[in-house]
């Protein structure tokens, strides 16, 4: 995209989502954990100029004081990492510092696969808990289940472990063993599961078909190859139905991911025109992304509904915003999260990295998403649980279904969704009805202010 700067795609994984989502403790403050990332490769463009004298003096003085007087020896690097961390935290909440270890972890995760056992984990009431085993992985084969409590990893109690530490302990080279001690209702005592680690692929796209020639594509996050997976399902659906009569693109609770992937996914459905543009402080950060012709989803005679909710952020909002502004799709659901900033990963000399907010992005009509989100064309409410207990019950129920392989996306894509499936998800059911009664009557749009 930019002549002088090499761009590389970066993605976080579902597993990491769980990490950031629950461990950060910034309850309700952070977006659902994922951000639009671009990676700039290579060292600093020029050798950095010295800091202003007074600042440098203060800085070296403190460094020296620590060296001389601190109760125990500290490596200068560790102290400087603290300093960079502190500097970055005066910026916005999406900017952060990654130690070399954290940055390596991120790079491993971005490859769309990693070596582990294949579970998504979270902290539930401060207890390390399995959210779900990923199908076809060692964890799945060993019979780990959603809701299992992991009390020990290789004999070490998990009580005081952070989620990140736990993830680190569970991962390891392919072929190596890890023992999880699992507590489960019905077990008289915690039981050991010995698992052999393997390469775990992570797919961000799942699909199903609906009776009457409709397709349903669910994007969990925007990572490497998300666009190809979307296109793959779309092509298969078009072959199966010829013609495909309508498509639902489900971006609910999709926290985002790669900016480029958002552009590519939107491009799947658009033949021309602006998708998104970014504005930063430097001309380098000002970019405009346009759709190109030639993808299978471009035909405007294919009716399309995009589902969003308050958990749809960043890359999801780019896709929903572009398809809405270009009137390619009807956006339905609830107002999206509203994270309209782009982070760039800037590697530093010693292997650590900055994740820095470098630009804001805008939908084709010039709207910023920051704090505003995308308003749906059709408001569809998810059934509202009456209290926290009911919400928990709903989640448990969903988890139970998932455990039995009865979740909506737990079956092969070409197996049609049943009425019972749709009853599970009233918003999806409404989306199907919208497609069956196409075109929908839209409430008059508010004039742009």
């Amino acid at each position, binding site marked *: 995209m930019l002549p002088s700067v090499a761009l590389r795609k970066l993605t976080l994984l579902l597993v990491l989502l769980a990490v950031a989502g629950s461990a950060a*403790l910034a*309850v*309700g*403050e952070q977006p659902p954990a994922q951000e639009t990332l671009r990676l700039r490769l290579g060292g*600093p463009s020029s050798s*950095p*100029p*010295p*800091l202003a004298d*007074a*600042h440098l*003096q*203060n*800085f*070296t*003085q*403190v*460094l*020296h*004081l*620590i060296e*001389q*007087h*601190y*109760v*125990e020896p*500290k*490596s*200068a*690097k560790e102290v*400087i990492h*603290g*300093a*960079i*961390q*502190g*500097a970055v*935290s*005066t*910026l916005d*909440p999406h900017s952060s510092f990654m130690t070399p270890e954290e940055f390596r972890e991120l790079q491993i995760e971005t490859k769309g696969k990693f070596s582990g056992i294949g579970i998504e984990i979270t902290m539930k*009431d*401060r*207890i390390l808990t399995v959210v779900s085993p990923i199908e076809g992985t060692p964890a799945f084969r060993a019979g780990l289940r959603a809701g299992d409590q992991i009390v020990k990893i290789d004999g070490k109690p998990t009580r005081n472990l952070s989620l990140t530490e736990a993830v680190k302990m569970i991962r390891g080279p392919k072929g190596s063993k890890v023992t999880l001690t699992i507590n489960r209702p019905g077990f008289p005592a915690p039981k050991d599961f010995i698992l052999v680690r393997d390469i775990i692929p992570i797919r961000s796209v799942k699909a199903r078909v609906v009776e009457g020639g409709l397709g349903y594509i669910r994007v969990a996050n925007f990572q490497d190859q998300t666009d190809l997976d979307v296109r793959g399902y779309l092509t298969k659906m078009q072959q199966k139905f010829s013609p495909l009569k309508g498509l639902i693109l489900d971006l609910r609770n999709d926290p985002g991911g790669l900016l480029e992937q958002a552009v590519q996914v939107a491009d799947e459905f658009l033949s021309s025109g602006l998708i998104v543009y970014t504005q*930063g*402080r*430097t001309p380098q*950060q000002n970019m405009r992304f346009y759709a190109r012709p030639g993808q299978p989803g471009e035909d405007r005679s294919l009716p399309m509904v995009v589902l969003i909710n308050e958990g749809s952020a960043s890359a999801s909002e780019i896709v929903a915003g572009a398809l809405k502004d270009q009137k390619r799709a009807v956006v339905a659901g609830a107002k999206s999260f509203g994270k309209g*900033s782009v982070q760039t990963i*800037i590697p*530093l*000399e*010693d292997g*650590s990295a*900055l994740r*820095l907010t*470098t630009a*804001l992005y805008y939908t084709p009509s010039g709207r910023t998403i920051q704090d505003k989100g995308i308003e749906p064309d059709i408001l569809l409410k998810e059934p509202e649980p009456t209290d*926290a207990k009911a919400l*928990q019950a709903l989640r448990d129920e969903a988890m139970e279904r998932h455990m039995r392989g009865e979740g909506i996306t737990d079956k092969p894509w070409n197996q049609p969704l049943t009425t019972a499936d749709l009853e599970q998800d009233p918003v999806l059911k409404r989306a199907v009805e919208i497609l069956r009664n196409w075109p929908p009557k839209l409430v008059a749009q508010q004039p742009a202010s």
Partner: protein
Amino acid sequence: MKSAGLASFCRRRLALLALVAGLCLTLPAVGPPSVPAMSGSDSYEALRLASEAFHEIGQKYVQPTDEGELMQGALRGMMNALDPDSSYLTPEEYREFQRGGRSAPAEAGLELIYKDHLLTAVSVLDHGPAARAGLKPGDLILKINGQLVRNLTTQEGMRRFQGPPGTVIRVQVVRNGLPKPLDLSITLEPLPPPRLSVHLLPGDYAYVRLPYFQDDTPAALAGLLRDLKRQHPALKGLILDLRNNARGSLEQAVRTASLLVGDREVVSTRGRRGTESQVYRGKSQDVVFKTLPPTMVLVDQGTARGAEILSGALQDHGLATLLGDKTFGLCGITRAFPLKDGAAVIMTVAAAYTPKGKKITGNGLTPEVEGKKPAPGEPAPAPPSVDQDPWVIQALEYLKRGAAPAKRS
């Protein structure tokens, strides 16, 4: 008491001040050394790295940045990377620190630390404003007056909970076992002297609660123990409750320990190169019990600083058995170092060691008897009365079995 109010209040403020920094002792500040040539390639590379990072931020951040603000953030982050007692103070914060916080006559009654980017209540002082507002030890403070807690220091975190009496501070806290954050309002008040309390337990056992230390606490405890001894000469055992007690200086701890250990060593301190080395002993004339009845000391994660010193001394001299949870490990000796621009850093320069040489700073003390815990996932029950408190019951059983030693003190 009334007439002594102001004087003791001023003393309390001073004591508090030393603790605001999480100090056991604040030594006089030393003058700034001249800016040295950086020694070693390690430091040089580290500086290069910092320079590179600040350059990238300055060039690429979505908005223009203020270099001064970035540098303050950096110094804060640098000190926070050391330990929770080490802090950077802006020139304004340092002036406040030197003034002794007289402009902040009231407080929330909290001991907080900023660690791993979280502001945590180590202890919530019994009967204090925060305790009455419903705060609990271990609570993580997410927001103060609606503002997200970010890039703070322990010092600054404590300062946010001081101010004129009657000031209302809204906090949002996350608590273990609660699905949602809690919103609480704390009204600042001058902190009263700690309420020492005694409960007699069936079979000639006594329970003594020491919630936090102030300068007159050793004398008050001496009086209380003497009364107890006189009224109950056949006392079979003592339970000293130091849970949720994170406020107490080294000096206060030494004077308190003196009542029980006499002239033996209470604690020693040692810096990196043998600097700041000092041994602190009690005084034989202070001792209350010639033979201390078998004693259990209750400790937990909220036991820190002075209370750790006291616990460590009793444990090492075989005068008491500790029961409960590992203590916090917050008892370093800190010192203020002024910087050229009027700012300062407060830094841990020495660690505290028990008489047998166990390092308390950063490690905490491990009790001999682990306190019984509710099953995982089960919320902790509401604070029970003394005789229904599970750890008191456990300590009492332990004493009745004769498992705790009786030693001459």
